[in-house]
Each structure stands twice: as structure tokens, then as C-alpha cells.
């Protein structure tokens, strides 16, 4: 298992910094492109949410830890922030059976993450929100 981590300011403009960092690490270690695409969507959803909601109007940091196990064929991705305590898995699920007119705009991000990843786990530890995700290929 190889692991690498990055700490950045939790601002929207850093989504591409995080994606580039994670992509480069995964590409060098033989992760399939299809899996990397899905990881990019997850970064957009989760890191994007941290930027928008974790620190309200203040500036804060986010840590992203990416791991790859080529023998067991999985990627792990962990997001940590010291913002407002928030468990995204407790959030109300959108009703995906509604028609376009009935649908509310929003609430889909974490739902997508749960659907396209294999495992997702939240804990609040040492004053930090810690969201861990695992994707097999």
C-alpha cells in the first residue's frame, strides 16, 4: 500500500490542485483511467462541499490522503477538515424516482459518491471531520 497526502486551503479554486495531485499519484501506480474519473467526481463533490460549508466564511485547511494497493486493486481516499462537525451520511437522501418537475435542485453529491464508490465511512476524530472512501477495480 502506497500513501501520499496533501494539505491545501479549502477553496474552490484548489479542486484542480487536489485532482491533479491525486491523478498523478494514481496514474503512476497503474490505477485504471475509469476509476480515476470516478475519483475525480468524488473529489469535486467532497472537497467542493468542504470548501462551501465547513468553515462558513472563514478560511480553513483540508487534508487529502490518497492510497493505492495494486495487489488488492483498490484506492483509498480520506478527507479531513477542522470545520463544523458534519456527517454527510446522515443527510437526507434525494428521491431519485421523482420527475424533473418535482425534483429539487441539489442534494445529489453525496448520493453520487455513495453510488460510485464501494465503501464510505465518516467519523469525528480529534476535532476533525474524517471521511474515508474506498474504491475497488
Amino acid at each position, binding site marked *: 500500500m502506497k500513501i501520499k497526502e496533501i494539505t491545501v486551503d479549502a477553496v474552490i479554486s484548489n479542486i484542480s490542485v487536489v485532482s491533479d495531485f491525486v491523478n498523478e499519484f494514481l496514474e503512476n501506480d497503474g490505477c485504471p483511467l475509469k476509476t480515476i474519473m*470516478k475519483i475525480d*467526481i468524488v473529489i469535486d463533490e467532497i472537497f467542493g462541499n468542504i470548501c462551501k460549508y465547513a468553515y462558513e466564511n472563514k478560511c480553513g485547511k483540508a487534508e487529502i490522503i490518497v492510497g493505492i494497493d495494486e495487489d488488492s486493486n483498490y484506492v483509498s481516499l480520506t478527507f479531513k477538515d477542522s470545520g463544523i462537525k458534519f456527517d454527510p451520511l446522515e443527510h437526507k437522501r434525494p428521491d431519485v*424516482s421523482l420527475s424533473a418537475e418535482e425534483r429539487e435542485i441539489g442534494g445529489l453529491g453525496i448520493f453520487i459518491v455513495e453510488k460510485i464508490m464501494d465503501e464510505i465511512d465518516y467519523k469525528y476524530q480529534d476535532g476533525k471531520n474524517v471521511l474515508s472512501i474506498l474504491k475497488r477495480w
Partner: protein
Amino acid sequence: MNIEKNQNGSELVVKVIGRVDTVTAPELESQVKESLEGITNLELNLEELEYISSAGLRVILSLQKIMSKQGRLIITNVNETVQDIFEVTGFSEILTIE
């Protein structure tokens, strides 16, 4: 992300190239919405769309709501990654995908 717009009378074809995510979705929304007056047929050609996150889905849903009042929206040339996202979110049921 890049957008190519091609209007022919009341028909507008929008080709979306690259990634539609938190950063680029607002631009897609404003670029398409500013061209919708008098449009009855809107086509989103996603042939060169690499991926879409929920921010992009919100834009498509919003366009669907507008077009269901003034005409129709069709989505064309969807790749596998994007189709996966449409399916897990139920968007494949509410959109017209050709």
C-alpha cells in the same frame, strides 16, 4: 470546459467539451440560458464530455425544467462514465437521451 453553440432557427445545439464540475457548471448554465429565448429544441451533445458531477446535473435539471415549458431537451452521445452517473441518480429516467 469549452462550449460550442450552434443555433439554427428555434433549434440550439450545445456541444459540451471537457469536465462539468463545481468550477465550470455555473459557466455552462449562464452560457446556455442566455441563448434560450425562442428556442424550442435544445440538444446537449455530450460526445466530448469527460465527466459530470452533481453541480453539472443541477444545471441539466434546471435546463430540463425550462425546456419542458417551452419545447424539449434532448441529450446525445453520452459516454459510459456519464451514463453511469445518469443511471445511479435516476437522471436517465427523467431525461430524453438519444
